């Protein structure tokens, strides 16, 4: 009797533990560990860096098409919020629980490759029949910024920081679209009407604002390099001059809530009709076009620098990378080639409003009919445009921007520190990081 009870108890325990453990391990690991039989589908997990009502359906549609064309591959979509995507990937790398493939910014490649998280794609890429169609400059850039000069991401879209402006407000105020920085600051003043809850501009003072701030600073100064004789150009007098004007707009011509503005809040301000001008990139076109009529808004380039030429950040692309932990590199590569095919790139970039990297897509009619993409191409194709390259190769680059610059911006806006103190601290952090990087190279030799 007792033995029977004991046997039942033990069996129950084993069942419960089995359930608990499989629950803990997760479906993904079980699939990873079992080698797929012929008839069995291979599942790959894809992480999108910017989930939301605009982009998630685009990916889902593309994945459906891919799965139809490749019935043996099942793609699981996981959407990450834009402002925390990097942190989530960091945690995944640290815990060894990475996806098979992910949408990865070019600027993340140096750090991820340093952490040995990504699979080099050179051998796959060299055998790919359509490799020559992908933007060579972007491919070369991705190789150049990583320490071992290997290819870790295939760019499927290119972006550019621009100004989104309410063209209808400019028209109503009989104002020309600003082409110089002086005109920009003047327009902000004129278009502010607090009594009607209208502000000339909005500053992104919250998460991710540092990246935009840096692009604005170099667009104003026209300085071509981040380091000059071992010193960072971040605290150059031109940048001090610019930021003093730029931050002086806060609260007078911009909402007080700007100090904590993240991406969503900033976009919402423009789309809800409170903001006349917004600095972001051409990638937010879909959001604006959903909220506003095409005759109400337009994209314009950031004004030419005080030196008289456009400045664009080099390597402003997003690509697909394969993580080293994948058990299915072949299927993952297949997914990459599909996303970079003419059909998929055309659909993705047309829906989002960004520049394709596949040359076949660049000749399509929708490109010619997209004014914001025309603006971006005008900047990129201008022979005088300076392509400014931030030190993406410093693995601390993003951390410095996230911790020192984002919070420093808030400190300046709240009057706790001066512009000079802020820029000196930023420059100091970058110089220290560069010093450590140089030291590590010496140690490697």
């Amino acid at each position, binding site marked *: 009797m007792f033995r029977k009870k004991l046997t039942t108890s033990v069996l129950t*325990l084993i069942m419960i533990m089995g359930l*608990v453990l499989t629950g*803990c391990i997760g479906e993904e690991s079980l699939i990873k560990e079992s080698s797929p039989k012929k008839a069995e589908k291979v599942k790959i997990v894809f992480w999108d860096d910017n989930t939301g009502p605009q982009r998630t359906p685009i990916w889902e549609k593309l994945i459906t098409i891919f799965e139809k064309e490749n019935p043996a591959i099942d793609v699981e979509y996981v959407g990450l919020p834009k402002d925390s995507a990097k942190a989530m990937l960091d945690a995944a790398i640290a815990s060894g629980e990475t996806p098979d493939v992910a949408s990865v910014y070019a600027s993340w490649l140096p750090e991820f490759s340093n952490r040995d998280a990504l699979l080099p794609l050179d051998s796959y890429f060299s055998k790919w029949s359509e490799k020559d169609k992908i933007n060579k400059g972007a491919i070369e850039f991705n190789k150049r910024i990583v320490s071992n000069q290997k290819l870790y991401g295939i760019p499927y879209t290119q972006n550019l920081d621009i100004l989104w402006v309410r063209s209808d407000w400019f028209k109503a105020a009989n104002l020309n679209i600003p082409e110089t920085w002086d005109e920009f600051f003047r327009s902000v003043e004129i278009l502010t009407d607090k009594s009607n809850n209208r502000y000339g501009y909005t500053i992104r003072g919250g998460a991710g604002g540092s990246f935009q701030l840096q692009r604005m600073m170099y667009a104003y100064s026209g300085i071509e390099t981040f380091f000059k004789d071992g010193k960072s150009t971040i605290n150059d007098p031109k940048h001090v001059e610019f930021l003093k004007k730029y931050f002086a707009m806060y609260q007078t011509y911009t909402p007080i809530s*700007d100090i904590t503005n993240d991406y969503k809040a900033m976009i919402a301000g423009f789309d809800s009709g409170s903001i006349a001008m917004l600095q972001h990139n051409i990638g937010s076109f879909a959001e604006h076009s959903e909220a506003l009529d095409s005759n109400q808004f337009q994209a314009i380039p950031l004004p030419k620098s005080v030196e008289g030429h456009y400045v664009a950040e080099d390597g402003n692309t997003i690509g697909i990378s394969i993580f080293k932990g994948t058990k299915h590199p072949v299927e993952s590569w297949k997914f990459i080639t599909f996303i970079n095919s003419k059909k998929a790139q055309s659909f993705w970039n047309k829906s989002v409003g960004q520049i394709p990297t596949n040359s076949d897509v660049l000749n399509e009619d929708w490109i010619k009919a997209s004014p914001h993409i025309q603006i971006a191409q005008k900047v990129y194709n201008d022979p005088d445009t300076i392509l400014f390259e931030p030190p993406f190769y410093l693995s601390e680059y993003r*951390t410095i921007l996230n911790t020192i610059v984002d919070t420093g911006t808030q400190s300046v806006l*709240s009057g706790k520190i001066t512009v000079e103190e802020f820029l000196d601290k930023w420059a100091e952090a970058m110089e220290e990081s560069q010093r450590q990087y140089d030291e590590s190279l010496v140690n490697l030799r």
Partner: protein
Amino acid sequence: MSLSQGVTETAINSKKTVNRKKIKKDKWVPYLFILPSFLIILGFLFYPIATVFYYSVQHYDVSAPYYNGFAGLENFKEIFTTDKMFIPSLINSLKWVVSEVGLQLVFGMILALLLNQTFKFRGLVRAVAFIPWAVSGVLASTMWSLMFNEHMGVLNDLLMKMGIINEPQAFLANTSTAFTAVIIAELWRGIPFFAITLLASLSSIPDELYEAARVDGASRWKSFIFVTLPQLKNTIVLTTLLRVVWEFNNVDLLFNLTGGGPAHSTTTLTMYIADLAVHGSNFGYGSALTVVSFGILLVFAILYLKLSRYEKE
């Protein structure tokens, strides 16, 4: 010894042996039953805690891999000597915990005393009063951020209609109001916890004690001071201790409402640690800070229980 005696003794001995075996077997069966829970706790609680202690003596910054390795006590030295954020964030933590726990206890007590009265629809009112406790942190954050919103927030609308303010305020974006705003949001969420636990204790106080106090001519206030409070003492001590630990470690509302900003004005120690991990990727230093905050809470808990003479009459 007769034969029958021998047989009986043998029978008794064999029965004892069987019983001993049964007892022996019965001894480890309960352990078998608690084994799964024990393994889960070991895996999901003790292992991560041990990992935090391990990383606290390591340089482990994923964005600065060149220096990763054993650090000894360097992280701790940095906390107490050069870290400019440690003391301000600790002060913010103390302000946060004292105001939250103090106010939640006072309002929770008032709510519990009200809900302990007999009135119509008491059950429904109790259920409604406890709803905030059931709301998830993310949902509460979203709700309060909309209410505090400068352009469309209901709070601005009400305050302007009442003539208290002339123009909309960005409560969460102003360094002088952000901390108070977040405290109010957390207060809303925390009051029901005290109300629930105190109400449970209030219901168990015998009516005879109040009757005796009434006979002795005690006023309502005196009854509260000399009957209710002593009877609630253990509950108050335990709930405040638990709440202090929870509020000290609370991060969800702060993270979602202000992210520790503007300009660190709402950065508590836990928020600072979360920020180091999420945005700074510096897990070694973050772990050292976690160990320090663990030490602070441990010392507090021991002192608090000792000084409050918990479970001593």
